[in-house]
């Protein structure tokens, strides 16, 4: 490395103006107009959907429905978050749905039949996920079978495994209060506010430290005003959300009080932050993108492509396990359908709607959360509309198309501007 340090150091990055909040905003508008719109289309889709449902069904904008949204979308969102890792490689995991079912079944069996304490069961379920991921990953990376086929085989085999675990179709009830609480109980309101304060503080701290460290090195750093703006946004929106969730939403407030942030919300938040850090700030994350972008280039750079693939599958299946646990908690039971029917397609759909590419190299964990929100809103809104099965399928399909269409047209406009 010393070699390089001797070379004359003449800055090449001259075109970048020192940014202020004003021209940062201008640059953002220009970026969006130029086509680099990040999460904007998904957000737009969400806003449109919410508007339509709110207009059609006033109960859509009640505190209780807002809280329901989180618990209803949690399992799919968690599975989608894991899928992002596999999709980033340009691979697919069709078995994630039933893998979550297997893990949920392991949870249920160890909890009820074996009578283990809840934390042991949770660990067992997640370990099952890790094991499944290792198996799938090894078959894809080491043996070289296309992931579609491997996970299609997994789709079948895990379906069988769930059946074996739940005794050929019985329905195992989960009565452990801790597990049931995950998807069905809420934080006490004060804890919600504490959590909110901690989040805001950490976010502001990280942003400030980063800017300061870059400025010290003479690199282009975000100006104070921009940071303040971002923190301000967080303060307002997160504050509103916590406030809404802390409203009384019980039907019989005198009988029982129902308030607070659902427990799944901090669960999703923590996982979102952790996986985002892994993807954006660790070498592993960098290598994941590299393999997805150009596997051959990654190999030539000495990246252990096989190992990266295996890890990605492990993460995917472990997140499926987490999703399975939440699903089991929500239904307070596990049956052979857990993780079945449309769970997988919805999860992949969530990731893709959020902006993750099926061809690898492009996507963020946040995408999965945004896409999961779109899917949850559709399901929630459709539930309120009370259509029959056939109309519901038709409308859900159309709404999905619409949400994705907003996104596609925005990107198309951008492509026409020359950016692809």
């Amino acid at each position, binding site marked *: 490395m010393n070699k*390089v340090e001797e070379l004359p150091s003449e800055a090449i*990055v001259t*075109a970048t103006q020192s940014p202020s909040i004003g021209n940062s905003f201008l640059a953002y508008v220009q970026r969006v107009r130029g086509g680099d719109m990040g999460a904007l289309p998904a957000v737009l889709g969400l806003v449109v959907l919410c508007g339509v449902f709110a207009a059609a069904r006033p109960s859509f904008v009640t505190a209780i429905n807002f809280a329901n949204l989180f618990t209803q979308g949690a399992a799919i969102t968690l599975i989608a978050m894991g899928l992002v890792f596999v999709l980033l490689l340009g691979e697919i995991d069709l078995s994630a749905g039933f893998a979550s079912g297997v893990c949920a079944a392991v949870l249920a069996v160890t909890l009820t039949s074996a009578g283990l304490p809840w934390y042991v069961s949770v660990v067992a379920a997640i370990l099952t996920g890790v094991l499944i991921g290792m198996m799938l990953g090894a078959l894809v990376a080491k043996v070289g079978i296309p992931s579609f086929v491997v996970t299609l085989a997994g789709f079948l085999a895990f379906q069988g495994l769930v059946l074996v675990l739940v005794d050929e179709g019985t329905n195992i009830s989960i009565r452990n209060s801790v597990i049931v609480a995950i998807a069905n109980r809420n934080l006490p309101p004060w804890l919600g506010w504490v959590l909110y304060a901690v989040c805001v503080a950490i976010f502001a701290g990280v942003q400030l430290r980063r800017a300061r*460290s870059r400025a010290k090195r003479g690199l282009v750093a975000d100006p104070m005003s921009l940071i303040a703006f971002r923190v301000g946004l967080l303060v307002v929106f997160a504050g509103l959300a916590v406030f809404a969730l802390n409203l009384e939403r019980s039907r019989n407030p005198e009988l029982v009080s129902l308030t607070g942030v659902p427990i799944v919300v901090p669960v999703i938040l923590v996982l979102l932050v952790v996986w985002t850090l892994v993807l954006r700030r660790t070498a592993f994350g960098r290598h994941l993108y*590299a393999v997805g972008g150009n596997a051959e280039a990654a190999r030539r*750079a000495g990246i252990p492509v096989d190992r990266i693939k295996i890890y990605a599958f492990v993460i995917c299946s472990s997140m499926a396990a987490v999703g399975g646990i939440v699903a089991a908690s929500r239904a307070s039971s596990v049956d052979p359908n857990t993780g079945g029917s449309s769970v997988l397609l919805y999860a992949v759909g969530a990731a893709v709607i959020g902006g993750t590419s099926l061809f690898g190299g*492009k996507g963020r964990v946040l995408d999965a959360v945004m896409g999961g929100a779109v899917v949850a809103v559709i399901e929630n809104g459709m539930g309120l509309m009370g259509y029959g099965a056939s109309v519901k399928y038709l409308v859900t399909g159309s709404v999905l198309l619409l949400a994705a269409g907003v996104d596609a047209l925005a990107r198309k406009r951008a492509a026409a501007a020359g950016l692809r």
Partner: protein
Amino acid sequence: MTPLLEVRGIDKSFGPVKVLHRVELSAYAGEVTALVGDNGAGKSTLVKCVGGIYPIDDGEILFDGRPVQVHSPRDAGELGIEIVYQDLALCDNLDIVQNMFLGRERRRGPMLDEDSMEELAERTLSSLSVRTVKSIRQQVSSLSGGQRQTVAIAKAVLWNSKVVILDEPTAALGVAQTAQVLELVRRLADTGLAVVLISHNLNDVFAVSDRIAALYLGRMAAQVKTADVTHAQVVELITSGRSGDLGLKNGVTP
């Protein structure tokens, strides 16, 4: 003097097509060895064999006199062999800095040390006379042909390697950039590295190389000191495999 890198009797076929026939090549520390040959002669294939991209059918690779096994690019990297491939192999979805440090990211604890990488990348690139790159946080997919090539070269010279192999590094470069790269090549050799340079431009070859190895239809026609041959002789070696006493006799290596 033992060569730092030596390949002996390398054979390589793609299915029924034999591309390399018992090829020999030596690269010495402190010297620039030019590898020349017609289109399709097998230069890039030879380099890829050395880099662990292709497995070899027969023959051996010696590093510093010891026989070594190079089964993957990782092995080559660990030996200290750094290669700029002709088909550049950059990750289009990553930016310039990310590409330059790919596989050897700097860390602070478990996290990446983005800032120090950005700083170092900027310095390396500017030393290669790239003036038109708007930002080193630009995705490489948006770079011009020459800019991409520069990034690939910068990536390879960023490391403390012992052997640097450059497969047509100046093909897409402008006049000034070409001069810079040739100067860099010479400088690398002078600091004690073994450099292998593949080029179709004989002026460049004569300007910087100490030795010339000429490949003809997958066979090594001759490996000579640059000082001992003329321009015309090298052209003859490239196009017909021999020149006077030099080169292949009846299609086999002497």
